């Protein structure tokens, strides 16, 4: 991953590419540590430690914290209102590796620019973010690791 705004990238940017460069920044600038994306995954933990699957489950079902069930359904029999905008989370841990899940949470627009799934750890390239949320990612690195640890327990 290229570091947005680094001396090297500034040099490379020709005058007529300034606009495109700005667009590029908007798309790729993330608070995620750079140079951590490998293929379609972020292989190493954002905190350097493994997350807690029990806390992860709480975050996933919490309407305000993870808000995952706004869009997704999943194996949560106690949750009455689940979304139908996104794939069922059951089996997510069999379909995806830990690193793939991490990139999908940190910034799914890197895989599909049109996706409706929010980037849970990106603060750049957003428009008119409400005051209360401005400059803050949706989840903290610890919370993301907790969610990943939980998703890995969802096996077919």
């Amino acid at each position, binding site marked *: 991953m290229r570091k947005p705004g680094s001396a090297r990238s500034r040099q490379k940017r020709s005058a007529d590419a300034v606009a495109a460069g700005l667009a590029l920044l908007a798309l790729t600038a993330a608070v995620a540590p750079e140079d951590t994306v490998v293929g379609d995954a972020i292989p190493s933990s954002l905190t350097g430690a493994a997350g807690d699957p029990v806390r992860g489950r709480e975050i996933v079902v919490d309407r305000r914290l993870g*808000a995952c069930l706004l869009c997704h359904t999943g194996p949560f029999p106690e949750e009455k209102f689940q979304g139908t905008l996104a794939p069922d989370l059951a089996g997510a841990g069999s379909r995806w590796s830990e690193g793939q899940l991490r990139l999908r949470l940190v910034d799914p627009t890197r895989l599909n620019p049109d996706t409706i799934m929010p980037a849970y750890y990106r603060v750049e390239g957003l428009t008119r973010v409400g005051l209360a*949320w401005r400059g803050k990612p949706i989840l903290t690195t610890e919370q993301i690791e907790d969610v990943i640890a939980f998703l890995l327990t969802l096996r077919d």
Partner: protein
Amino acid sequence: MRTLLAAGLALAAATAAAAEIALDARRSGYDFARPEIRAMQDDETANPGMLWVLQGESLWARKADAAAKSCQDCHGDAAVSMKGVAARYPAFDPVLARPLDLEQRVNRCRSEHQGAEPLAWESEDLLALTAFVARQSRGVPITVTASPTLRPFLDLGKELFHQREGQLNLSCSQCHDDNWGKRLAGSVIPQGHPTGYPIYRLEWQSLGSLQRRLRNCMTAVRAEPFDYGAPQAVALELYLMERAGGMPMDAPAVRP
């Protein structure tokens, strides 16, 4: 440079306009509502919005402040003079050189013709007057169209409708063009046609304006909502009305 190109393509994909809803696939929010809610809307004695309509009817005839003139003194019988009016708002005001929505029109009449203070957004009196006026357009098809003077405002509204916003980074279009009919947690996503405003919303336990509804959607995606009456908010209303062109008005509607 190759990275720039790749990103340029990705960006083009990200901003490509989503498919608009085909004319014959358009549905009012009424069609997505539960049968009890539809029944409540249809029955005048059960529709809570009718309380505001009645209140508006008495305000219509009441003389306001300094000028001691009522709406009725200028406009006469609302059943005649106000029929179809709400169906063509927001409308262009040549003096201000911008579109005004119905709420702003009412307040403009107050300041220009009645020498009265503007009514606050979402105040009982403003909701009552707009509900009463909108009621006169029941069944009238929406006729907001792109006149040359409205064009730039419509374009702005359309752009805002397709712009991703907020911490959740979603556009109106991603929900209302691309995912209507699906469930966002417990709520069915309607197509977002403003046929029935002001609406009685069960969640609010009150009547509310279209702008209030838009603010709800904006805060849901954790965006900073536009101020009441802001040009962007009116532009969005305008685009929504044009997008719903031809659909019959059904104010005051009832929604979950």
